[in-house]
């Protein structure tokens, strides 16, 4: 397949693997930010091809994983209401709240529907004027423009029965939180290519300078990740910091300016809680006051809902790269995709799920 096979070629992959083995002389710890990257790394077996000195740690870039428990509880409370059609991307349906998930609510009669675009949710609102249609707006800078577009479209059409449960999170503040944590182990970042396709990478220079680390904007195919690893490791070995761009076929320094304009028009930065990590200043988006009527949290008065995480789940440490999934005592026993304690075991992009599905047994 054009633009796919080129990035999954074994001879090309072997060249990068050999180059990585050639450049590494000491232990290094790299973080890939995005859960999609984690899955490619493990699904294609890259983690097993790297030198032993290289430790890959998995970042907080899984939107399903970092959506806080109380936000899941708010979603469940809204989805249970008879007047509501609750819409979401598929990934969110199996994320556990304290006692249920959206699929359970569906099996109990809630009108929960998977949509493939937030604009499909807007269409549902048009088609069902007597129902309230709510879209669970999760995700990083990648999904935020489409979600902003849904609110902008509903506003332009004067739809009064559409709203979003807004849970957007932003990458650069999370990177700063990880780097400034006292036990930080991350020495270099492979930044999420699709986030940068929207936002550019102008925000990353000050972070690389402040913490004196290399940041390499990296794509999602196996060869992207191998090249991203190589570029990061080479910079580390040569003692360089700064930002490099591996994903030049999709990412520019400035990013997608119309998308950024739309984001600024509809959303404004706010402090946001991350599941398992806690609150990070200015790390999320909320609706601007002009669009506040589209906020499901206030429309359905669920803002006061609180919830406590499982004490056994170490998702927060995993999402900060401090521990690996298999270092959790509950991994694969008390915590499985069927009975998850935390979101990283549920999401298709979660690090625990990746380890569970693709890496549970040692293969030679």
């Amino acid at each position: 397949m054009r633009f796919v096979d080129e990035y999954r070629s074994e001879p090309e992959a072997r060249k990068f693997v050999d180059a990585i083995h050639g450049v590494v002389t000491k232990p290094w710890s790299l973080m890939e930010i995005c859960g999609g990257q984690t899955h490619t790394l493990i699904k294609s077996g890259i983690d097993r091809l790297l030198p032993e000195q290289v430790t890959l740690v998995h970042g907080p870039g899984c939107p399903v994983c970092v959506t806080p428990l109380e936000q899941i509880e708010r979603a469940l409370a809204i989805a249970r209401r008879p007047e509501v059609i609750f819409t979401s991307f598929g990934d969110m349906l199996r994320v556990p709240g304290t006692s249920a998930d959206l699929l359970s609510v569906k099996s109990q009669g809630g009108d929960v529907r998977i949509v493939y675009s937030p604009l499909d949710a807007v269409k549902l609102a048009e088609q069902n004027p007597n129902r309230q249609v709510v879209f669970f707006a999760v995700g990083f800078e990648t999904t935020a423009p489409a979600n902003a577009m849904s609110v902008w479209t509903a506003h332009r059409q004067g739809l009064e029965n559409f709203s979003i449960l807004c849970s957007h999170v932003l990458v650069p503040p999370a990177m700063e939180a990880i780097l400034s944590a006292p036990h930080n182990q991350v020495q270099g970042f492979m930044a999420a290519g699709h986030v940068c396709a929207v936002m550019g990478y102008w925000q990353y220079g000050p972070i690389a300078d402040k913490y004196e680390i290399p940041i390499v904007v990296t794509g999602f195919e196996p060869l992207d990740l191998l090249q991203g690893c190589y570029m990061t490791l080479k910079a580390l070995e040569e003692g360089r910091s700064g930002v490099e761009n591996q994903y030049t076929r999709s990412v520019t320094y400035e990013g997608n300016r119309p998308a950024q304009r739309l984001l600024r028009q509809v959303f404004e930065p706010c402090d946001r809680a991350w599941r398992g990590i806690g609150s990070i200043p200015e790390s999320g988006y909320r609706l601007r006051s002009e669009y506040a009527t589209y906020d499901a949290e206030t429309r359905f008065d669920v803002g006061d809902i609180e919830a406590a995480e499982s004490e056994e789940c170490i998702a927060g440490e995993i999402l900060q790269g401090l521990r690996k999934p298999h270092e959790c005592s509950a991994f694969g026993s008390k915590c499985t995709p069927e009975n998850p304690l935390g979101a990283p075991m549920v999401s298709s992009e979660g690090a625990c799920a990746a380890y569970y599905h693709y890496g549970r047994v040692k293969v030679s």
Partner: protein
Amino acid sequence: MSDKDPLPRFAGSCPIPISDYPMVQMAHGGGGRLSQMLIEKLFVPAFDNPVLENLHDGAVLGLSSGSERSPGQQRLAFSTDSFVVRPLFFPGGDIGSLAVHGTVNDVAMCGAKPMAISAGFILEEGFAMGDLWRIVESMRDAALEAGVWVVTGDTKVVDKGKGDGVYINTTGVGLLRDGVEISPEGASVGDKILINGPIAEHGIAIMSVREGLEFETRLETDSAALYPLVELLLDNLPDDLRVLRDPTRGGVASALNEIAGQSNAGVLLEEDRIPLSEEVRGACEILGFDPLYVANEGKCLAIIAADRAEEALELWRSHRLGAQAAIIGEVVDDHPGRVVLRSSIGGLRVVDMLSGEQLPRIC
């Protein structure tokens, strides 16, 4: 389970973790781990008998005395399946032809020639008679092509709003030849794994017309009656055919996991050798699906002794249903009970049972 939860009647000894699934989920019928759990932990112990315990696509019964076996005794393969597909009509097929193919294939995967099927219809009040006629015509044509008669049936009608138009249950029977021993426990180290063509076509064809997800594709379901492929192997290498399985719900990954588990053998797949059409690859890339877990309705996995595998491959390739057949892996002594895949870039990873349904990704 909390002490406060009201217990269902059988919950005292029910091994399913009811506290986690107090109600049936869609994934209990998805062919993955939850389906397996329901069958192995609930149905099999409840109906406790040695034939059911084989967990094959169908039951094989000695004609004279139930499960008792004696030399020369005629054996019957017996299987049932229910069809609740949406939409009822999809590219290349419909629920009627699917209901025939699904059941005759389950009989064929026992190594038996399908003879006859039953058809049970559950119709929703208000369903268009013209559409019902189309479905019945399609069943008739599929049955003729598969060489089976629809010999008995049943019809029930449910209130409007209590069904999806039409549900169909079919049950099939077929006869086994003497000496044929097909069993999911039969895989042994060195055997090769064959498939008769590109995977995941049925699942993606259905998704392409599913409400809310429609996308343009030339792709059609692969739904077909597979006994001719089984017959080719039984005619030419009956002693070297170990296992047959049609990878329907849960896809190739789930079928091979079941075989690996029941044979306690390791399976090693080669990603580059697994036939996959460009359309299916593209759709799976966009949706974030792994084609190994997507349903098929006209595909057959066969595990064959290593020294006859190439011959089996040529036999299949000589038939229209196997023109794109391939050897996709082998049975190994490493990692018993597990399926492992060598990726296109040379890495290794586990191919697990599907947990729940595959859901489209966020980004």
